[in-house]
């Protein structure tokens, strides 16, 4: 079944891609045909498989330790959501200071973990236009997504590009195809409108946004102003303290900012006594 779905997805992808190539030559993208748009609604991403392949959390995951870690992380985030229903608290931005610290890894796992909650649904958004690792890993790099909505001038709307997956509570918003003017796009009012729409339309939905690193571009700091909560991933033993300082100062944190940190790739846990041993995951 999966294979058939995959094949179908591929076909539709090809169709979309062709359109995309054309648009890159001109400055304005050609409008998409509604057929195509409707077709993307039909797509179900075989998320679980990608997750399992790449070492992420997935619904029947047996790695209890990791499950526990993410449960711990999501708790304060969800509490904020429940407490501040108005304030876009359900839009959680995941970022880091430098590339490679594991924000994509963390954001995806977080999304899955939250999705495992009984009453929650999750929309995962890949906003890392320059290095859309999330989209790539999840196999949705060729789908229309965020950037297309921003570029399209209302032609392409959110419901058209939000992707359903084989995990019922998880939806995906790919990074999209037109990624050349990322900075301006994300800084534009269109983005803030989009954010508004996302947060208001689906109040129960938790939106996890995977953003670029703070010090790589300034999009993250722009997005930080739009997000209700910020989760900053720090890589243990590698990220210098000074870099973190710099990143934090870039974020313009105020008293109203909801920000939390996650220490990733850690080898020590002071709560438990002793040393973590790495979890070697068997791959299939």
């Amino acid at each position: 079944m999966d294979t058939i779905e995959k094949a179908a997805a591929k076909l539709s992808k090809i169709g979309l891609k062709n359109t995309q190539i054309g648009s890159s030559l001109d400055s304005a993208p050609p409008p998409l045909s509604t057929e195509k748009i409707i077709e993307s609604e039909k797509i179900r991403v075989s998320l679980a498989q990608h997750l399992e392949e790449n070492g992420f959390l997935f619904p029947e995951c047996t790695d209890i330790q990791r499950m526990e870690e993410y449960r711990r992380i999501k708790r304060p985030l969800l509490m904020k959501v429940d407490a501040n229903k108005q304030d876009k608290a359900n839009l959680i931005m995941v970022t880091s200071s430098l590339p490679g610290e594991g924000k994509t890894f963390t954001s995806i796992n977080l999304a899955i973990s939250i999705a495992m909650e009984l009453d929650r649904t999750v929309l995962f958004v890949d906003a890392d236009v320059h290095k859309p690792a999330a989209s790539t890993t999840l196999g949705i790099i060729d789908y229309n997504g965020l950037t297309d909505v921003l570029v399209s001038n209302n032609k392409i709307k959110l419901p058209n590009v939000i992707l359903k997956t084989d995990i019922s509570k998880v939806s995906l918003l790919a990074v999209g195809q037109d990624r050349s003017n990322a900075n301006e796009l994300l800084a534009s009012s269109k983005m803030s409108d989009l954010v508004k729409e996302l947060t208001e339309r689906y109040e129960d939905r938790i939106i996890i946004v995977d953003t670029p690193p703070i010090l790589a571009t300034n999009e993250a700091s722009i997005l930080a102003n739009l997000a209700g909560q910020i989760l900053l991933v720090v890589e243990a033993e590698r990220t210098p303290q000074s870099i973190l300082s710099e990143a934090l100062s870039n974020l313009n944190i105020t008293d109203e900012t909801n920000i939390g940190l996650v220490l990733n790739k850690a080898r020590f846990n002071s709560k438990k006594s002793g040393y973590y041993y790495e979890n070697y995951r068997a791959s299939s």
Partner: protein
Amino acid sequence: MDETLTQIFKITRLLWNRRWIILAVATLVCAVGWPVVYLIPNKYDSMARVYLNTQTMLTPLLRGLAVEDDRAREQIASTTRRTLLSRPNLEKLIRETDLNLEVHSPEERERLLIELARKIQVRGGQRENIYTISYTNKDPILAKKVVEVLLSIFVESTLGVARNDTSVTEKFIEEQIKEYEARLIEAEERLKNFKQKNMGLMPSDAGGYFARAQAQADLLQQARLELDEAIMRRDELHRQIERESIQLHRQAVLEEQSGVYDERINLMEARLDELLLQFTEAHPDVVSLKESIEELKRQKALSLENESENDNNSIGEPVVSEELRVALSTIEAEVSALRVRVEEYERRTAHLKSLVDTIPKVEAEYARLNRDYDINLENYQALVNRRESAKISRDADESVDDLQFKIIDPPVAAIVPSSPNRPLLLTAVLFLGFGLGAGVAWILAMIKPTFYEQRELREFSGIPVFGTVSLTLTNKAKSMRRLRTIGFILAGGGLFAAYGAQIALQFAQ
């Protein structure tokens, strides 16, 4: 405990994370340090051991007389050392080893001599009679030569010393004997003078001053007793004589007086008796006769009374017996004699008393002079004995010189250098390299710290940390890491292999 363990783990990770830096620094240090170790010039030791018996001659003779054993040995040893490294000897040394050809100025020469004196080691001589001469130089042949030459100089100088030993000793003893002789004579002289000066005050056989004083006091007391006795006896005799003479005198006088009256009374009483034959008591003649008799008796009594009164006022001529008179004169003589004796003794006692200070002093001085003399005599005799035994032993040992010296180990030209200790230095450089590497890594860690624990993150940022995600590796990542570790081990191994090879080489030499 957990804290410490965590700390240790953390430090280990800190260093491991910078392992390449550590290795790089270590390699750099070794690359510089190891060649330096090889550049240090070799130094070679040369050593000779000699048995030298300088003490056999000296020590037994001097034992007890002059100096203790160990100190003597030590002195001899250090004297030997100093003699050996004396300026003339060193000059001789540099001439015979051609070292003097290398110096071109007086200052250089001076420095060479000082350096030699410092570097040449002469040890030993304290416990056994084994001396060790050693010298170190970068030329092994030169080192050997120096020691050889030094050895010959040593032998010459100490043999000379040994040979001198006996004559020195004998001379020493002779001098001592002479000195003691002089002292002896002097002591005798002093004793004699003293005796002369203090003739009367010499302690007699009866004992010292105090004994004499005591004896004198006893004698005095005795004499006084005797005198008192004698006087008592004389007085008693006197009294006896007096008593007797008075009695006799009285009797005589009484007899005389009462003789006259008694005659008449007797006549009258005879007549009375006659009358009474013819007449009665009433007869007037009888009555008148009786009255006359009564009268006469009364007169007799009266005259006797008068006489006895006169008796008390005048003894008159005593009439004594011959015996008593003789006894009296004897006792009188005795008393006078005793008096004289007592006076004499009193005089003597007083005289002694006046000398209460002087005599003991004199006695003490006398004793001291005697002691002095005795000691000198003793020493003198001991020395004379020694001289005799020295003469005997010398005569016996005349030909035993060569037993006094023997080379135990001759000097050789060393093949293996004594310094530097290359293996040690190489190892030291290696340790230094890693140490520095660790130090650099540490400094870097301090300069650019990262986060190892959630707590650190929280404390640093002040922002709540929602959680910690432990490191997981995909298989791909795992094998990548393994490769990198192997790479590092190989690189590190390379350095250690280089080290090991060098050490092996050192020991193979």
